[in-house]
């Protein structure tokens, strides 16, 4: 796509979404989420529509900033929006989302206490986000390249893997990964120079920067890579669904964890429908089907996770208390930090050219 095409596309999308705004009807639930992320599964939409009589209209975003802009510029259009917990603050400060009456959500009681009570989602005793699923950005390995899975993040720097390492093309994730590798708190990076030095020494190891699950899986399928950063849900999907030789490794140094939650925007026209939809999204029945049919991250609903088979990845590996001790949940970051991370990441990418 050339630049003018992109502009045209964005303009067209803006026109299209504003056209939708006029068409919003009372019994419709407008959902804003990543594409291909649970809420738009055809079987799920069908089951929800049949059960509640609401019609689901999906819309998608490509970045959190785009999501915030879409809610800001289309007040009243969306009824449900999926917001990463680290962005909940920003949405609440901008008066974009409203408190949720969790008494209307029967499944809310089963959400694990630490997630439901997360200070990122609950402000002044009011719930601004209903935890949905969580997952890790950890390491994944190509089973063909290892006799025994590595335990340390240092494996990424091993000269034996030179040119066979991948990392996601994302500034925030890269910097936080560097923080873990240098033994720092991902949400309070004190020594940025150490992060930069660590990542600089990683760059010559890199084969490419991946951006989608498909990139990763293709490279493993053609045996081009040994190790790289990967999302936990994707690693599971690669193994169980696509039968690829992929294993997730949660290194002893730790891993980056994220929590996704549902919110209701200010001015939503169908709050009752939104509540029903969120309740359905955290329902064990939907979750088990999502895991079995497609593969999914870990549900925040403890009953939903318990409904999985005993040896399921999301129960066995992700539910391991040893893993829980090591992971660090992403907290909100400011726009200034984000831009600083991007500048650092771009500099690293230019230096390695």
């Amino acid at each position, binding site marked *: *796509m*050339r*630049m*003018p095409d*992109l*502009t*045209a596309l*964005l*303009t067209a999308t*803006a026109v299209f979404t504003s056209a939708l705004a006029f068409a919003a009807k009372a019994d419709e639930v407008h959902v804003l989420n990543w594409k291909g992320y649970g809420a738009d599964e055809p079987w799920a939409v069908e089951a929800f529509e049949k059960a509640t009589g609401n019609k689901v209209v999906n819309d998608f975003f*490509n*970045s959190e*900033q*785009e999501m*915030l*802009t879409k809610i*800001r*510029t289309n007040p009243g259009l969306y009824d449900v929006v999926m917001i990463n917990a680290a962005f909940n603050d920003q949405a609440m400060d*901008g008066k974009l989302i409203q408190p949720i009456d969790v008494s209307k959500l029967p499944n809310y009681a089963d959400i694990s206490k630490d997630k439901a009570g997360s200070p990122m989602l609950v402000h002044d005793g009011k719930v601004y986000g209903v935890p949905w699923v969580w997952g890790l950005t950890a390491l994944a390995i190509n089973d063909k390249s290892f006799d025994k899975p590595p335990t340390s993040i240092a494996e990424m720097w091993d000269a034996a893997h030179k040119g066979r390492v991948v990392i996601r093309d*994302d*500034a925030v994730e890269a910097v936080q990964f560097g923080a873990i590798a240098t033994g720092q708190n991902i949400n309070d990076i004190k020594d940025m120079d150490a992060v930069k030095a660590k990542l600089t020494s990683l*760059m010559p190891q*890199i*084969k*490419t*920067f991946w*951006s989608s699950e498909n990139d990763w899986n*293709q490279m493993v399928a*053609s*045996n*081009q890579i040994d190790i790289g950063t990967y999302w936990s849900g994707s690693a599971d999907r690669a193994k169980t669904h696509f039968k690829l030789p992929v294993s997730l490794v949660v290194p002893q140094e730790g891993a980056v964890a994220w929590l996704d939650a549902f919110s209701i925007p200010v001015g939503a026209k169908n709050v009752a429908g939104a509540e029903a939809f969120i309740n359905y999204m955290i329902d064990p029945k939907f979750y088990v089907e999502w895991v079995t049919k497609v593969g999914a991250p870990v549900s925040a609903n403890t009953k939903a996770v318990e409904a999985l088979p005993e040896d399921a990845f999301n129960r066995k590996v992700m539910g391991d208390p040893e893993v829980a001790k090591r992971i660090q949940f992403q907290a909100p970051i400011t726009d200034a930090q*984000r*831009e600083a991370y*991007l*500048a650092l990441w*771009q*500099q690293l*990418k*230019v230096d*390695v*050219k």
Partner: protein
Amino acid sequence: MAAATASRSGLRSALPLLTPAYLWLTVAIFLPLSAMVFFSFMTELPLSGKPWAFTLGNYAAFFSQSLYLTLLLASLRLGLEVTLWCIVIGYPAAYVLAKVLKGRSREAIFLLVILPFWSNGLVRIFSWAMVLREGGILDTALNAVLPFKINIDLMYSYPAVIIGLVHSYVPYMVLTCYLTLQAIDDSLIEAGRSLGASRLQVLKRVIIPLSMPGLVAGAALIFVPVVGSFMEPRILGGRTGTFYGTVIEDQFVAVFNWPLGAALSFILLAVVLVILAVASPVLRRAA
């Protein structure tokens, strides 16, 4: 007086013919582009609903960090290299099409040249990914034929970006050169030959000068979009695939900083225009 009236009435009769094109240009190019100029001077996107003000900061950002300049130079180099390869590959092909082949075989070859245009750009790039990687089609095929073992892994490298871009853009060069080459009267070539010029002299003194407008047009058509390209470098370039275009794309898609993305785009536009302006007298003389 009479001439002025005549030209005015000429314009009036031309108006219905011109209106659709100009209307389209205004709506599809002028308006979005001016919106982008406007954005590039802002602190925040007005769409975002946050307070905004006018600033030159987005343009200053280009000069405050060396990385943008480094990338711009890398992109200009990429543009030059791709254009050069397109000439090397496209010009002889255009010559053969225009002067050697006739009838059915010309149509068939022409079709092969145009064919890439009919497939989606992304599909073309992903098929290159299958060909270029280690254990890919090229690697396997060469190892099947050659008696010794070689290891070809061009994927995720600078040459892979060049290959992908040349493949995408070479048809432009073939088409523009074909048009000017085909217009050269064969009798001029015959005259040159009969007056004792060698084939090489005919090429240098007759064919290349007469086809220069096509070469120049093709070069400009290729150079400009390649300098701003981002899809091919991102997919084929791996860790060497960071270019000026990919950084602009990041600003628009990844961090949603349209003002900075717009400012970077206009700096690119300005640089390209300056290059074309500086080159145009030289090229015009050559043409």
